């Protein structure tokens, strides 16, 4: 084992891993973090804590991660290159690890234009690929990005994101290969609704043997309503929602749409379990964390392995 990460242990055991996420509150409401984490606690191997998601100010991912860690759970802190330069990132990582946080996700982050501070200067000192390399170097070589020795290096299990649906499609396997080359341990993908396209991407991943070098967790998001599906299709960058998804939700009454959305999520998991190279699932139930246990159970992923 490279780290003490529970996610690493589950993946190493060969079992399908399950992660989920919670968005920290937009204010000093630590109880909200705890409530969300408590909903997920028995059904996942790690809880992603988003970092100022969609460029809206929230409690910092590291701080919310500490709250979750103190509940005896396993936070996966996300870090975006939009808000921090390499000094701030590394100090945050040391701080997080000092509280026992051992798993993180390296991201570029949505552009500030999407959030509530569109006038802010984005930092982007390093990109997500360079961040992966930096965290690996901190762990494996005990060195800061600048080259100095770390007195007590953080041992992070390093994740990143992949979006098989963004353009240009032909670059998307190569982009993953770059992250693998930088040393990423696991990948959580963008929400998958176009399963055919995802499978085509995975085929490219497997053909290059990348599935032997990195654990891929398929991103699953249950649709709450047809309105949400339409919004995601039209407004969220890099999202691929086939018309079939919208039609299927339109085909049931408004009251039944949430249930249908969950059914679709479970069906997706069942189908993707068969895909070579998929080593687990990352369930992003946006402001709907309470449904995660149900999805995990219905998809036959419960109980979670004891590692």
């Amino acid at each position: 084992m490279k780290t003490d990460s529970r996610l690493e242990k589950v993946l190493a055991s060969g079992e399908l891993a399950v992660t989920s996420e919670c968005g920290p509150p937009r204010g000093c409401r630590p109880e909200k973090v705890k409530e969300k984490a408590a909903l997920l606690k028995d059904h996942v191997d790690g809880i992603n804590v988003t970092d100022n998601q969609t460029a809206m100010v929230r409690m910092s991912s590291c701080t919310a991660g500490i709250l979750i860690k103190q509940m005896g759970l396993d936070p996966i802190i996300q870090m975006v290159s939009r808000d921090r330069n390499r000094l701030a990132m590394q100090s945050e990582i040391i701080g997080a690890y000092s509280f026992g946080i051992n798993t993180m996700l390296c991201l570029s982050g949505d552009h500030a234009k999407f959030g509530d501070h569109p006038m802010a200067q984005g930092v982007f000192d390093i990109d997500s690929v360079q961040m992966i390399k930096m965290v690996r170097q901190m762990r494996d070589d005990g060195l800061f990005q600048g080259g100095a020795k770390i007195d007590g290096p953080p041992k992070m299990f390093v994740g990143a994101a992949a979006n098989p649906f963004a353009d240009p499609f032909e670059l998307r396997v190569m982009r993953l290969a770059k992250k693998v080359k930088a040393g990423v341990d696991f990948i959580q993908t963008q929400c998958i609704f176009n399963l055919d396209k995802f499978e085509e991407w995975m085929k490219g991943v497997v053909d290059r043997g990348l599935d032997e070098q990195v654990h891929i967790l398929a991103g699953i998001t249950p649709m709450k309503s047809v309105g949400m599906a339409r919004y995601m299709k039209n407004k969220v960058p890099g999202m691929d929602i086939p018309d079939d998804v919208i039609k299927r939700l339109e085909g049931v009454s408004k009251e039944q749409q949430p249930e249908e959305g969950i059914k679709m999520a479970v069906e997706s998991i069942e189908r993707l379990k068969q895909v070579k190279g998929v080593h687990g699932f990352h369930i992003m139930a946006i402001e709907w964390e309470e449904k995660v246990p149900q999805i995990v159970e219905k998809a036959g992923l419960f109980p979670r392995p004891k590692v």
Partner: protein
Amino acid sequence: MITAEQKPIQEIIQYIAPYSRILLVGCNECVTVCAAGGRKEVGLLASALHLSHLKQGKNIDIREITLERQCDPEYVEELAPYIDGVDAVVSMACGCGVQTIAGRFKKTPVFPAVNTRFMGASLSQGVWAERCKGCGDCVLGITGGVCPVARCSKHLFNGPCGGTSHGQCEVSQDIDCAWRLIWERLKELGLESRYEELMEAKDWRPGGAGGPGTIIREDLA
């Protein structure tokens, strides 16, 4: 070249409100090309200022002059004979020109009449787009002649990010995804494999992180 756009006229009027004798200075270089502060724009701005003062029943004396280069002390020296006869200078050059004048004539206030925007290229008549951030360590030789620093909204060195949609940037459908352009260009050049080479974390010092830049050419100095 350096691109600029004229400031809102009200802002310029506010700057010069306390003064009645103005030296309005254009520049024959970049701001002439981007039609923000050349001889023609100096004339137009002078007329506009005259008109607005007339409307308020005030008098203003505006002397117009357009220098070959406002960022060059040699040309800025041409203002010396006029400077004692004016209360303030309004510069239509980029920020470099404004500061060169301010540095030479310590007792005369200088106001900018344009907002300096970016280093850009002309795409077509009347259209300019940002092409260079002056990062001080050019990577165009390895990115197929498309700059990820100036043209990727997140200046990613190992892009594209996950927000690319229909080949355009997540920030705006009017912005081409720089990494889509880099990829297309590498393909045209038969250099696809170069995409997978990791680009290391950038040293931002030459581009300004190391403090304001200075170039000293011993052979010329």
